[in-house]
């Protein structure tokens, strides 16, 4: 366990970023996003979480896959994927760090997605425990401990001291390279950190959504939940935009499209949303014609299908982004409460 005073952070950042890219929550035009750190950028480590999740650094919103050049009947294939170079992402919250493990279950499963794997190997995740959770947070429901985030390196900010502890071997190796900036934390610091963690845990117990129960959602309940009449009423306000899926850190769906640049065809991959009508539209029809079915698919996937295929792990980390940002305030919490066997509904 190392420590560094928070007013030396700029030094730490500049030494990290001289040989590799460093991303962290930075405010740009009034909006906090994960952006590349520069000397003059406005760092916002106090912001609870960004709207666009750090998933974008490993599974970018759009990336080139392959390009083709067509001459008459012949096609030549050009591999022009966006090369990924080593980078560090700092200030990731516990929920987002947990979302990386969920995405790993999808993309690193055979057959491995090499684009995602290259970025995952090149990236070092430095998480920052949160100290002031919002009322929309419910990561504890999914067994995520906000005070002990996962990731390669975990950090905590207590008063004006940043505590730095590497959790994985990759984190260990990286800490070695910048060891001289830190001092090692003594017993007193450990105590201060422990009491800080307890305070935050007390707050988490008091969060309004901490008692959300998931025991209605398991693979046996697939048919019962699928045919429930409540989907009609839950989805009547949904306007079918893609906000909940594009800001969700665990959404994995993507689309593959071709773009004719005039000199050749660029095949690229981009995020897709099951809420859009063309998600499953085929030449001879669409199995999900109305918004009710699409709405149902999203929450069935997160709460039943994904746990069925991944031995019980839910595809939600309780970050609360969809709770805060849905244009009509319909979200997974309301679905869990309406569909589950939660007693206070």
């Amino acid at each position, binding site marked *: 366990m190392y420590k560094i005073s928070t007013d030396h952070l700029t030094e730490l950042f500049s030494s990290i970023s001289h040989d590799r890219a460093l991303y962290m929550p930075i405010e740009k035009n009034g909006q906090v996003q994960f952006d590349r750190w520069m000397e003059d950028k406005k760092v916002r480590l106090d912001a609870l979480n960004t709207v666009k999740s750090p998933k974008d650094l490993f599974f970018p919103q759009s990336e080139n896959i392959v*390009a083709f*050049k067509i001459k008459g009947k012949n096609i030549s294939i050009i591999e*022009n994927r966006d090369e990924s170079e080593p980078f560090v992402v700092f200030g990731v919250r516990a929920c987002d760090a947990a979302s990386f493990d969920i995405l790993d279950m999808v993309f690193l499963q055979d057959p491995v997605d090499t684009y995602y794997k290259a970025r995952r190997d090149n990236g070092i995740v430095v998480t920052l425990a949160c100290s002031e959770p919002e009322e929309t947070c419910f990561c504890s429901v999914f067994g995520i401990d906000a005070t002990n985030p996962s990731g390669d390196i975990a950090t905590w900010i207590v008063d004006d001291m940043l505590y730095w502890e590497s959790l994985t071997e990759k984190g260990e190796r990286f800490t070695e390279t910048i060891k001289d900036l830190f001092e090692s934390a003594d017993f007193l610091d450990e105590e201060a950190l422990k009491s800080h963690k307890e305070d935050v845990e007390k707050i988490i117990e008091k969060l309004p959504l901490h008692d959300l129960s998931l025991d209605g959602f398991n693979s046996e309940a697939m048919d019962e939940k699928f045919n429930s009449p409540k989907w009609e009423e839950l989805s009547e306000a949904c306007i079918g935009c893609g906000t909940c899926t594009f800001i969700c850190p665990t959404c994995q769906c993507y689309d593959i499209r071709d773009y004719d*640049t*005039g*000199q*050749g065809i*660029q095949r690229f991959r981009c995020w897709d949303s099951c809420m859009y009508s063309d998600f499953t539209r085929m030449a001879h029809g669409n199995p999900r014609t109305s918004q009710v079915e699409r709405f149902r698919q999203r929450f069935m996937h997160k709460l039943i299908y994904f746990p069925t295929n991944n031995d019980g792990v839910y595809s939600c980390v309780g970050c609360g982004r969809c709770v805060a940002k849905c244009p009509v305030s319909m979200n997974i919490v309301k679905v869990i409460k309406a569909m589950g066997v939660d007693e206070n509904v």
Partner: protein
Amino acid sequence: MSIEKTEDSNFEPLIVAFCCNWCSYAGADLAGTSRLSYPANVKIIRVPCSCRVNPMFILRAFQRGADGVIICGCHPGDCHYSTGNYYARRRMTLLFSMLDYLGIERGRTRVEWVSAAEGVKFSTVMNEFSKTIHELGENKKLRDLRCKEFLD
């Protein structure tokens, strides 16, 4: 399709001209038959009427490499479809103002009324427009980089 551009040292502007079939296209024809010259890098696209030009066309032209877009139509009042150019006039005014609002150089887009008999006006307008675009330089703001630097 992307529009090929001559990439020599002094910048050669590429201009897309939407010419309405009844007046300005005939005007361009007249300019040709009466041996009046206008820059070769003006690519004419024939449209039934100036109000057929959709804002998407203009933005597509810029995306694919055009540096200037000019819409030519009949003089207000003698449009073949009687009211086409009136609507086009309003639509283009609002579009140009919107592009200017977004910071695109104002000179890059223009509307000219050229009748079928004004071959001379057509060639002078095209020469003059090509000069202004030449001064403005290459279109960097409304450019789709994927179309430009596609590697071989």
